[in-house]
């Protein structure tokens, strides 16, 4: 079975984390293959190339900061559901997704 993977914003990534899938630029070109271990130099290079999100192997990485992870999910939920206020169905889904990600009602 696949080991669990963790989507992160680039600012949360730290050296030692391992990519759980290939990383691409906006044009779809491959920047780093999955399995690559992140280093300081790589992280700086990714920042220069405008990479915003990546996905790392959860259990092969240094402990991911739980609080930072919750902040990430909270921010992503707010972003994804940013046009949902007037739509009842969308709010229902937002509540469920908040419970799923954070274990709490939004």
């Amino acid at each position: 079975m696949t080991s669990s993977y963790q989507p992160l914003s680039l600012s949360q990534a730290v050296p030692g984390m391992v990519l759980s899938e290939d990383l691409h630029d906006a044009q779809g070109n491959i920047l780093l293959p999955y399995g690559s271990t992140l280093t300081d130099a790589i992280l700086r290079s990714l920042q220069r190339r405008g990479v915003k999100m990546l996905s790392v192997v959860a259990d092969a990485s240094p402990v991911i900061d739980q609080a930072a992870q919750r902040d990430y999910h909270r921010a992503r939920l707010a972003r994804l559901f940013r046009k949902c206020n007037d739509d009842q169905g969308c709010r229902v889904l937002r509540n469920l997704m908040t419970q799923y990600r954070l274990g709490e009602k939004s």
Partner: protein
Amino acid sequence: MSTLALELVLRKIHDLPSLPIVVMELLGSIGKEDVNIEELSEKISRDQALTAKTLRLANSSFYGMQRKVTTINEAIAILGFHCIYNLAATASLVGSFTKIEHSNFNLRPFWRHSIATAVCARVLASQLRIDAEHAYTAGLLHDIGRVVLATQFPQDYEAVMDFRATHDSRLIEAENAVLGIDHAAVGQALAVHWKFPESIQQAVAFHHSAEVHQIGSMASLIHIADAIAHALDLSMDEDDLVPPICLGAWNRLKLDQNAFLQVFQEAEQQFKGACQVLPA
């Protein structure tokens, strides 16, 4: 801004190459009892590249095989015909639209979202006792109109993407504002031209409709699967946006909270395996 005439779009659609045979036959075999499995697996096997991709998927960790399968027949024997057929169809479809010349349209988030919707549809369908592989195919194809617009009208579609980014609008709003036509209408025309089954035509045409619950069970299912795929953030598109949801379609599912949480979890797990079809 000039708008695209439906007539022009239709003419372009008729000029599109036909779908790979294996996909046509998959669509044709939906809901049929008397499918000639031997003949179809033979057709997959004759295409070396497609066979390689299908076996790579079948051997991915998602399916938890004890040992490597090396032929299409063996894969069918272990995983079942519909499963292998879906893998082949996905690989084939993705393979026919991987690069768009002279355009910044990025197909990768597009296919990630299509596969995510397909997986969500399959997981939902199995909860509802609807044909799960049929739902997968409908989910995979639901946004196919976007590929038509992006490949056949690359410059117009770049204007759509610019409009979307500038106004932070939904893509379908940007399409209607810039082109006067949207991917659901274009997808419907293509679905008719390619003779998709009725239920898939409806899912393609009405997955954004506010009254989708009155259309049919598959269209309703895809409408919800699409929203869940966006909400799970699977496309890895920074600007992704969860669309409005038709409450009628939502209530039609009759799933309780725990069932939904389970759907989210299963969909996330299956997505990882399904995504290996995307080119590196």
